[in-house]
């Protein structure tokens, strides 16, 4: 077992454990912070999957953007909101949640079953890409490729998403505006 | 214009008149309704008088022997490869219908007179009343199953609203219970009806038909169809015809009502306003009995003889069980309602015997019970109107305060408990005779059923006399004290006018049962013959 694998297991353990904690904890604030850790661990996993740029983006946007947004929204919205939102009296597995839990567990079983059946390592196209050296070598610097790709091959989605982002920005701003209507 | 058509749709016409009249004229509505019902009564008496008797007018399974027939093509759809859909507007009567028709129109007049007490929302009430009127008349006249079913269903809706809107304290519960019960029955009836439709072909036109008379002829069934006599189809492992019979029987048994499908009846009767109680008890129950004769045993004679034992058993159970329950009641209307269960048990017993005596007795009992229960409910309504209480134990010594009322109550009670000279005696005696005779004639019912049935007469005497003793005799002692004493005035003129013809009818039928028997006899004989031929 080499270092990469060790790292992978550690990272995935951290990610899953913290995700479970996120799901299980009663305290909203704690769960948000734990989510933070999950995202970090996931970023680590991306690195291990040879996607360093994605990992960085993950940290910048998710951790720096989304999570901060959540926290801000949460903390800026007044004391009573805070209390109401933080109010979590349900246990992790209560009778009311049993169906949800069962559902999730069954989904997990189904998915795992699929994964094992599919046997991803020996997929046809994966094998082909390995043969044709289409896979990413461990030491490749992908950032440049991504940049070029964005500006050429993926230009249209890129632009579309930027418009979407702007719309979302305007919309969010409009929605959270105080005052008339709202 | 055919007289039957006229008699069916007269009330609708008057109902329409009431609908268009402004509400300011609301006081005239009851007179209009009364006029409509009187008109109907006049027509039915005309029919009765002009009704021909004789072996050639037996009816039952010979289309040509029905009288006052009208047959118009109504819905004729060409379904291409499926053949033609043939639904006729087909009305006609034979001996069994004619007596019930007269009884019905008579009871409706009484019910219209009893509607004087209704004070709220007169327009709605009388319009619904007239629609109901049309539907019940239609049921007795129609010979097309589809038409029959439409009228049958059409009764339910006005009744539901009449009970639900003008009823007593628990009216909603009672209305919904009534509605669900009967709807339950009729939904299944619909299935059987369609099954029959698909099995029967009109020999003349070659189309599938809803004609009931043709359904009675085994030759008209298509070979291999569901209800064909020869093909012995099965549904869930039972013979299809047996299933059809049982389902139809359940539908009508709910109406009759037969124990254990009777629990809607006490509730509905108790909660309904007096005119509706009268219609319920006087007519609706008869539709059940009529349906069993006209539809159940006529279309499925083979099954009817095979299952006669169970029909008879249900009849006996109804007699005894209803009487027992009546004995235990504390509410006057409820007591009467259970007594209806008991009396209608005789009808079932008589029908099950499949002898001339039994079926004649059953029809007689239906007619007689139509009048008697009308009278009983009207009387219960009188006292309820006065003090809004019907508890048997809340009254004592009414005979001193209301002598005329007591006289009528005694007539009604004694007539109901089968005192000879009144019509109920004839009905009960001949139902029992038929039941007893059936062993020797066709071996359908064992002797003990008749004997048990006669015990029902004894119980009938017990509960009526007990009620009489508790409510009417003894020193005056009312729950409501002197307030009630002043409220309990004797009968007024309208009530006397209403009750007197009823009492006279009951007496007349008891002394001259030939009024009924002469008309039904040929039909009954035809029916018996038909049943024996199978």
């Amino acid at each position: 077992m080499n270092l990469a694998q060790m790292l992978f297991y550690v990272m995935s353990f951290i990610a899953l454990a913290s995700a479970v904690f996120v799901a299980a904890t009663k305290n909203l604030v704690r769960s948000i912070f734990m989510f933070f850790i999950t995202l970090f661990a996931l970023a680590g996993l991306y690195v291990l999957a040879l996607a360093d740029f994605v990992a960085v983006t993950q940290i910048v946007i998710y951790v720096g953007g989304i999570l901060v947004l959540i926290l801000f929204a949460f903390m800026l919205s007044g004391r009573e909101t805070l209390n109401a939102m933080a109010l979590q009296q349900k246990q992790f597995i209560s009778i009311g949640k049993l169906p949800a839990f069962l559902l999730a567990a069954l989904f997990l079983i189904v998915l795992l079953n699929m994964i094992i059946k599919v046997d991803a390592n020996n997929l046809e196209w994966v094998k082909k890409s390995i043969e044709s050296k289409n896979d990413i070598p461990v030491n490749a610097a992908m950032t440049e490729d991504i940049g070029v790709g964005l500006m050429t091959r993926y230009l249209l989605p890129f632009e579309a998403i930027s418009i979407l982002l702007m719309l979302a920005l305007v919309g969010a701003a409009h929605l959270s505006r105080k005052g008339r209507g709202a | 214009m055919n007289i039957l058509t006229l008699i069916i749709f007269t009330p609708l016409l008057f109902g329409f008149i009431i609908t268009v009249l402004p509400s300011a004229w609301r006081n005239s509505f009851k007179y209009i309704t009364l006029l409509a019902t009187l008109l109907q009564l006049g027509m039915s008496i005309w029919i009765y008088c002009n009704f021909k008797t004789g072996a050639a007018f037996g009816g039952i399974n010979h289309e040509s022997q029905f009288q006052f027939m009208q047959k118009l093509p109504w819905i004729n759809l060409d379904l291409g490869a499926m053949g033609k859909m043939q639904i006729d507007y087909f009305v006609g009567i034979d001996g069994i219908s004619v007596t019930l028709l007269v009884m019905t129109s008579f009871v409706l007049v009484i019910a219209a007179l009893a509607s004087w007490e209704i004070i709220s929302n007169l327009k709605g009430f009388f319009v619904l009343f007239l629609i109901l009127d049309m539907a019940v008349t239609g049921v007795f006249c129609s010979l097309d199953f589809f038409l029959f079913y439409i009228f049958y269903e059409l009764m339910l809706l006005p009744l539901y609203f009449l009970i639900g809107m003008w009823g007593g304290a628990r009216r909603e519960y009672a209305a919904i219970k009534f509605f669900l019960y009967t709807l339950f029955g009729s939904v299944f009836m619909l299935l059987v009806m369609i099954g029959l439709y698909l099995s029967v072909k009109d020999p003349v036109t070659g189309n599938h038909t809803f004609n009931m008379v043709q359904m009675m002829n085994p030759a008209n069934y298509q070979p291999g169809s569901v209800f064909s006599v020869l093909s012995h189809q099965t549904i869930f492992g039972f013979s299809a015809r047996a299933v059809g019979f049982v389902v139809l029987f359940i539908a009508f048994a709910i109406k009759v009502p037969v124990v254990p499908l009777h629990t809607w009846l006490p509730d509905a009767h108790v909660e309904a306003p007096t005119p509706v109680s009268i219609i319920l008890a006087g007519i609706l129950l008869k539709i059940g009995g009529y349906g069993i004769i006209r539809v159940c045993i006529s279309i499925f004679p083979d099954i009817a003889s095979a299952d006669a034992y169970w029909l008879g058993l249900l009849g006996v159970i109804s007699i005894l069980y209803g009487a027992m329950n009546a004995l235990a009641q504390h509410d006057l209307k409820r007591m009467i309602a259970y007594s209806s269960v008991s009396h209608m048990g005789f009808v079932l017993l008589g029908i099950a015997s499949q002898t001339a005596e039994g079926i004649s007795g059953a029809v007689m009992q239906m007619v007689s019970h139509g009048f008697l229960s009308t009278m009983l409910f009207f009387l219960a309504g009188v006292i309820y109107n006065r003090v809004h209480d019907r508890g048997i134990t809340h009254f004592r010594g009414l005979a001193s305060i209301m002598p005329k009322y007591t006289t009528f109550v005694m007539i009604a009670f004694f007539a109901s408990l089968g005192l000879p000279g009144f019509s109920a005696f004839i009905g009960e005696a001949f139902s029992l005779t038929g039941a007893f005779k059936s062993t020797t004639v066709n071996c359908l019912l064992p002797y003990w059923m008749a004997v048990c049935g006669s015990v029902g007469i004894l119980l009938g005497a017990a509960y009526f006399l007990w009620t009489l003793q508790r409510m009417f005799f003894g020193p005056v002692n009312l729950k409501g004290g002197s307030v009630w004493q002043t409220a309990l005035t004797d009968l007024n003129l309208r009530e006397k006018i209403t009750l007197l013809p009823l009492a006279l009818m009951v007496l007349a039928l008891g002394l001259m049962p030939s009024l009924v028997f002469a008309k039904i006899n040929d039909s009954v004989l035809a029916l018996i013959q038909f049943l024996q031929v199978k």
Partner: protein
Amino acid sequence: MPLLAFVINFSIPAKWNKVSGWASTIAILISCVLSVFVFAKVWNSNHIVHQQQLWFTIGNTKIYTGILLNNLSVLMLLLVSLIAMPVHIYSTAYMKGDENLSRYFAYLSFFCFSMLALVVVDNLILFYIFWELVGFSSYLLIGFWFTRDKAVQANKKAFIMNRIGDIGLLTAIIILFSQYHTFDITQLFADKGLIAQSVIKNGLWVAPLGSLPSIWQYIACGGIFLAVAAKSAQFPLHTWLPDAMEGPTSVSALIHAATMVAAGVFLLGRVYPLFNGLELTILAIIGCFTAFMAATIALTQNDLKRILAYSTISQLGFMIMAMGIGAYASSLFHLVTHAFFKCLLFLVAGIVIHQMAHIKDDNAMDIDPQNINNMGGLRKKLPFTFIATVIGGLALIGLPLTSGYLSKDSILIQSFEWSEGRNGVFKLIPIFALLTTWLTAFYVTRLIVKVFFGELRMLHGKPDIKLHIKDGGWQYKLPLVLLAIGCLFPLFSVNPLLYEQAWLFKGFAINGGLEREDVYHTLIPAGVNILSIIVIYVAYTIYVKRKTNIFPQEGFLYRLSFKEWYFDKIYNKVIVKPVLTLSTASFWFDREVIDGFISLLVKTGIILSKLSAWVDHHIIDGFLNLLVAIVEAISNFARKFQGGKVQYYLFSMLVIILALFILKIVF
């Protein structure tokens, strides 16, 4: 001609809406005259009038209505109208002042109508109809004073007991109908009728038109017996009769002494051919037992009318017994004579009670006007009444020169003859009958003595009460005279000592019984009467306590004066006490066991009915409600998916996806 007479007969008493009581009295008078006429025409003329017309047709059976007049029915017709007439006259006086007089006469006329119709109809259905109408009118009359609780209870009891009998009769009629396909009495019971042609063979009851298992023949007889027992107050169903005494006394006289209770015996007479040997024996035993039991009960009663009621039961028992032993003619003979003297006694009782009530009202005393312990010494106040009572009483005891002697002795003699051919237990029947006769003598004497002799016992308590009592006007006297004449022998027989000479008897006795066959015919009347007289005397002494009174047999008694005292003691110890105990016991039995049994039945019925009501409410309705609840639960469950909860939508969507996945994987 008879038909016309009966049309009038039927229609006139039906005028019961007339306010005046006289209208119905006149009506009954007319029917009385008419029936005498009819009687004269039909009696013994071998000319059986049978007319009928079609009533209605049911199926293939035609049902006729019509009348049938033979010796039996004309006799009953005459009897009923003859008894009814004095009672009507009497009632006009007796009921005077009652505010519901017209109602009373309406009921009374209605009763007469149904009774008269009952005896003449020719088919069983009509017979049943009038049979029940008789019970119904009796119900109305017993409960005439409907504000009295006891009266209402009594009439309910009477009606329900009668109803039990009616059902027996109805069952019997139905059985006969399904066996013979006819309701016609002549066809069924004539000499060569259908009944005569049917036999019981190999467990089958074979008739010309079909056969039934023989059990049904027994059940038919049982049903008829039940009807008889209910109407004529025989052993298991007799308790209503004493209670029925709550009605007006004149009603008791007419209905519960003379006519209605005789209807049972009449029915037996009509359907006599149906019964076979075994059934007749049972009848005889029951009749005998009833007679004896009722007589013992009558010994200790204090209520004037109850004594008479029990004595009626006892006499009816005699008639049934006579039927049972085949003394058909004697039975009917006794029926007729009994009607006269018992009616007389009741009317007398009515006068006495009326006068006692007067005393009670005048002096505002709290006493029971019917209690004979309060009476006494009325002989002087009511001399006419006294004479009538003595005649009636002697007839009831059956002393010579009265009509009761003729009929009662004929029954006794025939019972001895009957038992001659048998052994063992059957011997007891005539012996018990004999015993009953003596008991009768005893209680009748006791009654007369207590009421009319001695001094008014009320006076002991309050010596200063005023007494304004008298026999009453002619409305009282005329009926008494009429009936008293009916109690004496000449009306029935030229020879006061030999019953065989009675013309009534000849009318019925077709086979034998007319010759003085053996020693019984002389021995029994003599023995019975001597003993009866002794009993009367003994009773007399017990109750009068040797008060010197003029009494016909004084000389005879005087010679035995010493022994007499001695007798008295023994009598008290050996006979009276046990008899008292026995009668108390039998009264108790009557009250507790039979009544108790019936009230137990009633209770059981009520409990059963409560139970069934409960079942109805909880189980059957409950089942329905359960169905409703299930449907509701299902629909609520379904409704949840549309509850506007986003998470449920999501959840259900995911579940379905999952299900698809799983299906995909599995299959």
